[in-house]
């Protein structure tokens, strides 16, 4: 249990610092920082507390509880995704099966450790089912576009995210029972990469990656954020099953995928003319805004870990 408590301590420390900074900025309004930016930061900190308490619970409770929790997050994120995406009446029946069959089934298979099934359920069987069901409903207008919308929602919100709790079933040679810690490390690193990229964007950002898609993400933010995340990640290597060098490489991978997830989701949001999934329907938290980078990083991190730990050793 040593490394677990160590990592929890580090995370609590970081969260406490972030909370203190947020409250100080809120107190001293003459600092010249845009109050809206401070509020966004504080909202992020609140989301981190939630996420980390969730992960803390995952350490204590059996794996099935964690899998179920991630399943509920997927369900909610998919709700936000499909609400934002215009669908037609002809998509209704296929959406029903997407929500009530494929989403729960994916997590049941993850919970049952059936890798050979949950790795193909959605990208093969659901992806064939969706266009077929839409076609049978008899509406061919913008057919490919509509099928693709439902498919991407299911892929990002359910399939990709389900690889985060799937980390729990990886078998780590000579370090059994460390997978909870691995999941914890993964989620914390994704959030750190996100936060560091944003910090660097704000402080040193000059060259935008794609100004039309995201007005904040810059190359300086990406490189600086990735660099500092790699340093931090390497310093935390004792909490992972990896060597220091491997931990650094894994963090770089996470950083690239976090950028990819953030950019992809902002492209979708820009196309639909909204800023956040949260403001789409007022009063809802905007789950998808918080987990977009986790969704993109999870399958890549899963496969890289699986390859490193079971194939190479």
């Amino acid at each position, binding site marked *: 249990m040593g490394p677990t408590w160590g990592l929890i301590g580090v995370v609590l420390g970081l969260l406490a610092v972030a909370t203190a900074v947020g409250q100080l900025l809120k107190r001293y309004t003459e600092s010249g920082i845009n109050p809206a930016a401070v509020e966004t930061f504080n909202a992020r900190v609140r989301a981190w507390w939630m996420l980390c308490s969730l992960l803390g619970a995952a350490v204590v409770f059996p794996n099935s509880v964690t899998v179920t929790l991630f399943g509920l997050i997927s*369900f909610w994120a998919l*709700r*936000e995704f*499909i*609400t934002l995406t215009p*669908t037609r*009446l002809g998509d*209704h*029946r296929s*959406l*029903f099966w997407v*929500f009530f069959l494929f989403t729960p089934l994916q997590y049941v298979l993850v919970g049952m450790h059936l890798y050979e099934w949950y790795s193909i359920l959605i990208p093969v069987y659901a992806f064939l089912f969706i266009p077929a069901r839409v076609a049978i409903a008899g509406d061919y207008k913008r057919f490919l576009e509509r099928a693709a919308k439902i498919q991407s929602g299911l892929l990002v919100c359910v399939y990709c995210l389900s690889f985060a709790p799937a980390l729990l079933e990886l078998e780590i040679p000579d370090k059994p029972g460390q997978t909870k810690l691995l999941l914890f490390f993964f989620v914390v690193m994704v959030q750190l990469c996100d936060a560091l990229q944003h910090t660097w964007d704000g402080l040193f950002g000059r060259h935008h990656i794609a100004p039309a898609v995201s007005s904040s993400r810059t190359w300086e933010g990406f490189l600086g954020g990735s660099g500092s995340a790699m340093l931090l990640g390497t310093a935390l290597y004792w909490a992972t099953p990896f060597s220091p060098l491997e931990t650094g490489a894994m963090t770089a991978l996470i950083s690239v995928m976090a950028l990819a997830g953030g950019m992809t989701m902002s492209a979708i949001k820009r196309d639909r003319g909204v800023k956040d999934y949260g403001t*789409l*329907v*007022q*009063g*809802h938290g905007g789950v998808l805004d918080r987990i977009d980078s986790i969704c993109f990083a999870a399958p890549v991190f899963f496969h890289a870990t699986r390859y490193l730990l079971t194939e190479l050793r």
Partner: protein
Amino acid sequence: MTRQLVISQGLLSAAAKILSGSSVRWVDSQPDVCQRVYFANHTSHLDAIVVWSALPREVRQLTRPVAAKDYWIRGWVRRYLARTFNALLIDRTEIKVHQSPVDLMLREMGDKYSLIVFPEGGRSSGEGVGEFKSGLYYLCKKRPHLEVVPVHIDNLNRVLPRGEFLPVPLLSCVSFGPPMWLESGESKQEFLTRAREAVLKLKEA
């Protein structure tokens, strides 16, 4: 009100809120237990239940959605639901001269209950808001001090569209607008147009 009814009402409204993912907004408006007529655009069979569930508990217990009898008496599930949310069922098929729906509504309201009505009559396709029928005007004409409150329901037509029986749990939004009254000397057409525009304005707000 029996204890059992209070519990089933609580359960039903919680279930409706979870299923429809509805967020509630009061735009320049406050919930109140005074007698009101809430009028909303009609896009789904769930409309009546969702608007009713969106009200705070004290208001909800005094509010009766007006719904079509032919739909809500079919099968025991619908009958049970209609009884639970205290629906005022109107027979659309035989409307008699001496038993007009407006008179029935006023009688059932008494000096206690508020109503939820859907002045478009049938459900619209969900894209626009259809023309309003005149019932809302006659309600106000007979009870000029009645507050009428515009309500806009967004996205619920995608949760349970026309002709479907299986819902898809998307997120929807119910917006309540500021109360309005029938102005003295306002014609039927003017009032109905103004009411319809109040609902449309909430969509943008």
